[in-house]
């Protein structure tokens, strides 16, 4: 990993909300204008800091959804009882300002110049940094095969549902709680058999990115190792249950 270190002090910058978009009732995308923001890499995240009138501050990390070079966007899921996400999903409006810092991360990134197949495994809003990779692949014209295995509770919970079908990658959905009439896809949580059916052969040397809740990530990564994947080829990012 030598050479991946990014030099430079991290400072808080003012982010102005340029646009909001409802992906699902619980999940919104915010496009941000940030003066002084550098270019990010697909898969990185940023920190958001909110400051209350009494000076109380709350910080959370959010994955960057946009491809490098596109206007900076984050996608946020409202977590009940959260300190930050309910504001970002329900209350924020165009023109509002809050602080961000980043981009952050040199491990859970895909730069688009590697030829190996890429397996993306997403649980719920874990799809966000993987979406940045899929968008980046389309943008740079990468021919690396890319496949997304995406676990959602219901069809209406699928984030980026329409756009995912337009990016030229294989998308395999599993809907674990409720399925629309006539659904012929997977209906269960990710298990070893499902991974075996969907994942590239370990012999093809795929790069793997798994993002979701801690439980989801551990289950998917452990299953891939049992399929013969090199643990070092599996990059994971767990997100927390406090938002």
């Amino acid at each position: 990993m030598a050479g991946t270190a990014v030099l430079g002090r991290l400072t808080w910058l003012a982010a102005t909300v340029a646009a909001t978009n409802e992906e699902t009732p619980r999940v919104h995308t915010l496009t941000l204008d940030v003066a002084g923001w550098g270019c990010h890499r697909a898969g990185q995240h940023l920190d958001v800091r909110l400051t209350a009138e009494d000076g109380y501050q709350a910080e959370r990390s959010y994955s960057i959804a946009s491809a490098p070079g596109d206007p900076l966007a984050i996608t946020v899921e409202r977590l009940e009882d959260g300190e930050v996400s309910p504001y970002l999903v329900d209350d924020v409006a165009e023109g509002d300002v809050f602080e961000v810092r980043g981009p952050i991360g040199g491990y859970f990134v895909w730069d688009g110049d590697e030829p190996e197949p890429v397996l993306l495994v997403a649980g719920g809003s874990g799809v966000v940094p993987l979406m940045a990779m899929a968008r980046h692949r389309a943008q740079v014209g990468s021919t690396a095969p890319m496949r997304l295995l995406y676990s959602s509770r219901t069809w209406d919970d699928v984030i980026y549902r329409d756009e995912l079908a337009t990016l030229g990658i294989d998308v395999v959905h599993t809907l674990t709680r409720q399925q629309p009439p006539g659904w012929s896809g997977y209906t269960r949580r990710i298990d070893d058999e499902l991974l075996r059916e969907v994942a590239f052969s370990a012999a093809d040397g795929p790069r793997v990115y798994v993002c979701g809740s801690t439980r989801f990530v551990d289950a998917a990564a452990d299953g891939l190792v049992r399929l013969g994947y090199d643990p070092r080829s599996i990059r994971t990012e767990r997100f927390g249950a406090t938002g």
Partner: protein
Amino acid sequence: MTVEERVLDGNAAGGLLLELFGVDLTAAPCMCGGCGAREEVARLDVYVDCPGVVIRCRHCRNVMITIVRGPERTWIDLRGTSMMEF
């Protein structure tokens, strides 16, 4: 929430470490002072809801890094880390 559900990974500490060290450490190899396992910081277990931030070895659970922030200063305990490369 169980302890297992609270655990995050080194990506979650990326912003804090970048702020303190001026370098993105998530991809930096780091050797556990307990068992000698060598992993990138992103692959370590991180607890952010302690008093401070606690980073543990994913193999032997040894506490590798503890970071506590005060209003005007920061304390970093690295006793559990034998090497960090960046």
